[in-house]
């Protein structure tokens, strides 16, 4: 069949563009074990690094004796802070305006901290040598409780900045205090709460957990001493930023550094920051002139690289007797560990925690966040969420439930009463955001109908009666959540990382025969960018997605971008892709007009071609135009067909969703069983529904893990209690329930294709849905709130404290 005979529908389908459940082009290699990850990189003469780590949470380093290690055959070097100091690399800046030890400089501040870096000819020798490095410590008092950080007898952790009264985010009132960040109107919020007829108050703790990507962090550094070029392969969610940081730290000119992110086995925020292992690999390669590989193991990943959450959120919510919310107040104590290494935009030391008014029209609000140092690993990254948005969503969705209890109201009705209405968008929140679009009531009603919410409540009441009558030992919980995300950071005017504006980019080259390559400043870690970005482009330029190669991750070839995290790839790089595609189309239109001998304005775009208005038989396909651009002289138009776009988003995007979890709880054992989980997501324009569904399943499963048991726990001496996958909960298929997914589609008004981003929504909305189900199950017995993680013993204890075992 010739192109001319194809129907419009067939041509449309052939593009595999927006809205197509196109199979992921990445999966052929991933499912066959043909991915190329950083640990797959093997180079001649490659050396291996391994860390000597502190077993103490707080101690002075009295001495480090590396003699025995250096005597072991095959050991090339043992680096300590003393060796890095002449290069000024014994400390490094963090993304949060703090600095962090690369190797222990006089003291250690958390268990697992890097003390020395052993470099050896093979991985086994490196591990043997780690045991031979003798470190003498003098133990210091340990601080693990952030609420004790400012007591008179609290140990001073950061002696390097003990006297520094001004931090990166304003005044510091105590050596263990990092910052206080305030948003909203304190006086107004407190006045509303003082005078309101109903006020509910609760401490909501979002415990410390960890992104725990399947692939741990690692790097291979190779310094070519002949041409002065450094190549760094690594598990980087933001390769360009790593290049800039590496240049600033090492003094190597940026054009002499090439950073490559190969295939990455999940990031979830864990791979945004810069770790001592990267710095030490680079230094070791510079010193030895040989490539140096460093790959952390699982226990190192869990105990030393960036954690997530650890927010103690004290909340007050005020309402009328009828349930209309009047005001919200929140004070958060944020446990940042030993260094402030949060990966947030510079001006947001608590990320976007000020999205904590959620989906609700709350006229007055106030938020304060106190950042605190403790003897724990640094981090505070956005684990499958935009910056601190899961914390915010969990807080408000718990506070709504607590308020519903206080009002003796149905929690679904309370939400509906307070949702921002469709006609209120764009909506200015009390804490400073402009929500772009939303239709919460439609989504909410669809969700309630889909699960027969009223029927579920009747069943639940019956079950409570049966429980009280001794007919069952199981309770039923209904976990509700309506979340609003804030993603797509972000506008350069207020969002930067280390000064780099948070734009993103796409560069497209159309080849003479009508296929294309597009390169972006982002980097997929499993999101399927090679699939979805080609779809955006296919719809924009009329070339089948199958004929478009997407390339990311090599800073020598890709345009500068800020990387992939915070669901920013589609909102920012996806927009750049669409805009670059439109530049291609604009030039193509001029060429088509010349070829068809008409004025530019006499053409209209139709799927994959320019058609002369009123003469549908006269057209030029994009493929024909591409060929002409390389083979014909077009007067007044440069040869070739390429475009680049750097996109600075005018606003964030605000995806939202309605989730409902129905859970059965064995009161005697604390064992939970998810009977049903319904997830409605509105991520604006849907690019690939199959990938969206996969993202939702993945995010919900991580949410399930966090809510039901996943944690990084410390004992009072600062020992990590959950440093392996024996104790750190990663669900398998066995623990993972069936999910029902659904959607509404409310496009973003400011995004070129209306897309909002989806990868993180299920984690943001999932955690409160699971947690609310547990809390809701015990509501009939007087429970107001119980902290996550809801593992068996904690559920049992909740039941026990309520007297349900007597």
């Amino acid at each position: 069949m010739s192109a001319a005979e194809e129907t419009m529908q067939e041509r449309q389908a052939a593009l595999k563009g927006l809205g197509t459940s196109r199979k992921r082009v990445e999966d052929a290699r991933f499912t066959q074990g043909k991915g190329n990850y950083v640990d797959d990189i093997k180079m001649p003469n490659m050396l291996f690094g391994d860390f000597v780590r502190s077993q103490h949470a707080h101690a002075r380093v009295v001495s480090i004796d590396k003699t025995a290690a250096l005597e072991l055959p095959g050991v090339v070097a043992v680096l300590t802070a003393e060796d890095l100091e002449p290069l000024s690399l014994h400390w490094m800046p963090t993304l949060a305006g703090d600095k962090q030890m690369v190797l222990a400089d006089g003291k250690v501040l958390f268990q697992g901290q890097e003390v020395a870096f052993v470099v050896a000819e093979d991985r086994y020798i490196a591990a043997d040598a780690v045991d031979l490095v003798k470190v003498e410590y003098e133990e210091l008092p340990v601080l693990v409780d952030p609420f004790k950080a400012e007591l008179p007898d609290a140990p001073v952790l950061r002696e390097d900045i003990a006297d520094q009264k001004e931090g990166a985010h304003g005044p510091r009132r105590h050596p263990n205090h990092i910052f206080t960040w305030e948003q909203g109107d304190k006086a107004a919020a407190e006045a509303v709460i003082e005078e309101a007829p109903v006020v509910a108050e609760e401490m909501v703790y979002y415990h410390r957990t960890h992104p725990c990507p399947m692939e741990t962090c690692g790097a291979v550094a190779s310094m070519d001493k002949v041409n002065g070029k450094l190549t760094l392969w690594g598990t980087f969610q933001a390769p360009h930023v790593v290049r800039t940081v590496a240049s600033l730290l090492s003094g190597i000119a940026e054009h002499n550094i090439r950073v490559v992110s190969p295939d990455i086995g999940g990031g979830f925020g864990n791979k945004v920051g810069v770790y001592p292992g990267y710095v030490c690999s680079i230094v070791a390669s510079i010193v030895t002139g040989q490539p140096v590989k460093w790959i952390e193991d699982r226990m190192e990943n869990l105990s030393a690289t960036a954690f997530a959450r650890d927010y103690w959120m004290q909340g007050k919510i005020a309402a009328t007797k009828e349930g209309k919310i009047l005001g919200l107040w929140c004070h958060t104590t944020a446990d940042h560990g030993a260094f402030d290494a949060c990966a947030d935009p510079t001006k947001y030391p608590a990320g976007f925690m000020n999205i904590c008014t959620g989906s609700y029209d709350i006229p007055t609000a106030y938020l304060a966040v106190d950042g605190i140092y403790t003897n724990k690993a640094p981090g505070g990254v956005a684990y499958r969420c935009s910056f601190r948005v899961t914390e915010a969503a969990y807080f408000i969705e718990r506070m709504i439930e607590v308020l519903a209890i206080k009002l003796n109201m149905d929690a679904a009705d309370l939400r509906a009463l307070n949702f921002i209405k469709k006609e209120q968008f764009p909506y200015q929140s009390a804490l400073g955001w402009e929500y772009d679009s939303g239709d919460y009531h439609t989504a909410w009603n669809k969700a309630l109908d889909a699960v027969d919410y009223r029927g579920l409540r009747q069943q639940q009441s019956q079950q409570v009666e049966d429980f009280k009558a001794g007919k069952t030992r199981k309770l039923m919980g209904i976990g509700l959540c309506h979340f609003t995300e804030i993603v797509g950071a972000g506008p350069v005017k207020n969002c930067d990382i280390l000064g780099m504006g948070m734009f993103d980019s796409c560069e497209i080259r159309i080849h003479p025969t009508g296929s294309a390559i597009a390169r972006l400043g982002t980097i997929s870690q499993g999101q399927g960018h090679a699939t979805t970005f080609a779809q955006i482009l296919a719809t924009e330029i009329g070339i089948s997605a199958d004929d478009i190669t997407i390339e990311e991750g090599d800073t020598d070839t890709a345009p500068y971008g800020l990387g992939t995290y915070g669901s920013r790839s589609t909102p920012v790089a996806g927009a750049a892709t669409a805009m670059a595609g439109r530049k291609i189309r604009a030039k193509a239109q001029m060429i088509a007009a010349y070829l068809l001998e008409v004025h530019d304005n006499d053409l209209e775009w139709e799927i994959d071609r320019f058609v002369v208005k009123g003469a549908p038989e006269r057209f030029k396909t994009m493929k024909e135009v591409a060929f002409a651009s390389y083979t014909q002289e077009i007067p007044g138009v440069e040869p070739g067909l390429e475009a680049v776009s750097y996109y600075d988003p005018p606003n964030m995007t605000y995806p939202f969703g309605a989730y409902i979890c129905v859970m059965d709880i064995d009161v005697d054992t604390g064992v939970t069983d998810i009977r049903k989980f319904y997830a409605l997501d509105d991520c604006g324009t849907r690019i690939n529904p199959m990938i969206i569904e996969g993202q939702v399943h993945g995010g919900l499963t991580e949410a399930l893990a966090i809510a039901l048991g996943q944690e990084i726990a410390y004992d009072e001496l600062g020992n990590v209690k959950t440093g392996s996958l024996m104790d750190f909960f990663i669900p398998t298929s066995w623990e993972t329930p069936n999910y029902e997914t659904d959607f509404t589609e409310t496009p973003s008004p400011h995004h070129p294709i209306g897309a909002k981003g989806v990868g993180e929504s299920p984690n943001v909305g999932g955690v409160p849905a699971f947690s609310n189900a547990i809390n809701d199950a015990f509501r009939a017995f007087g429970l107001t709130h119980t902290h996550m993680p809801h593992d068996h013993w904690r559920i049992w204890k909740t039941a026990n404290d309520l007297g349900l075992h007597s």
Partner: protein
Amino acid sequence: MIPGRFEYHQPDSVPAAVGLLSDLGDEARVIAGGHSLIPMMKLRLAMPEHLIDLRAIDSLKQISVAGSTVTIGAMATQSDLIDSTELATAAPIVRETALQIADPQVRYVGTIGGNVANGDPGNDMPALMQCLNASFHLHGPDGERQVPAREFYEAAYFTARDDLEILTGISFPACEGGYAYEKQKRKIGDYATAAAAVLLSKAADSSCSQAAIALTNLADTPLYCQEASDHLVQSGVTDASIDAAVQSALGQIEPVDDNRGPVEFKKHAAKVILKRAIENAWARA
């Protein structure tokens, strides 16, 4: 997670393995499936200089039922136990237990011999073997001897096996009646928060003719609950006698506080799990 240096040996017979162990002495460890030993080596909590791998000894992989005696070679994997139709008839509780150990990947490699010989109180098979009144076959420089499972475990990782002996197999009488292995765990791959193995036989007059109860991960060894078992035989299986038997068994447990929960919770979980196991076994008897 990188082990120290070791030499690897793969003998092809039990005498050769026993000979190697005698020659290498304290510096050697026998390895079966490796699911306990290899993680310990990766953490360098175990640093044997020699590993004697039993995988090439085919005679240790057999499962047989002769008359009323079941014999299982030490190198039979959990997966072999699950797949054996003979075993499913002669001792279905073994299959029920094996299916609750970790995941299929682990069960393809993990062996019954390794599971019972290591003395890890978290392992499921030791309590099951006590419940079945199994005997462990030990081969050493002086030949073979048998030790009852109920007398084998001394403390965590300490057993009646001499350092120079290899546990080569297990035998136990085919079981009759009802059975249940109930296990509470946090997730697939976890050790039990509490687990119970129960075998009950019902006489024609509905009295309980035989009973055996054993518990997993509720002390530093598996626990055979003689008194609780006797109580069910003497009193019959009623709500009251089950409660009494459970109370008796609970008197033996000494759970420790860990990430699975505090002692108080574990005692409660043990009570619930054992009660369910007895009820389930009796319903099947």
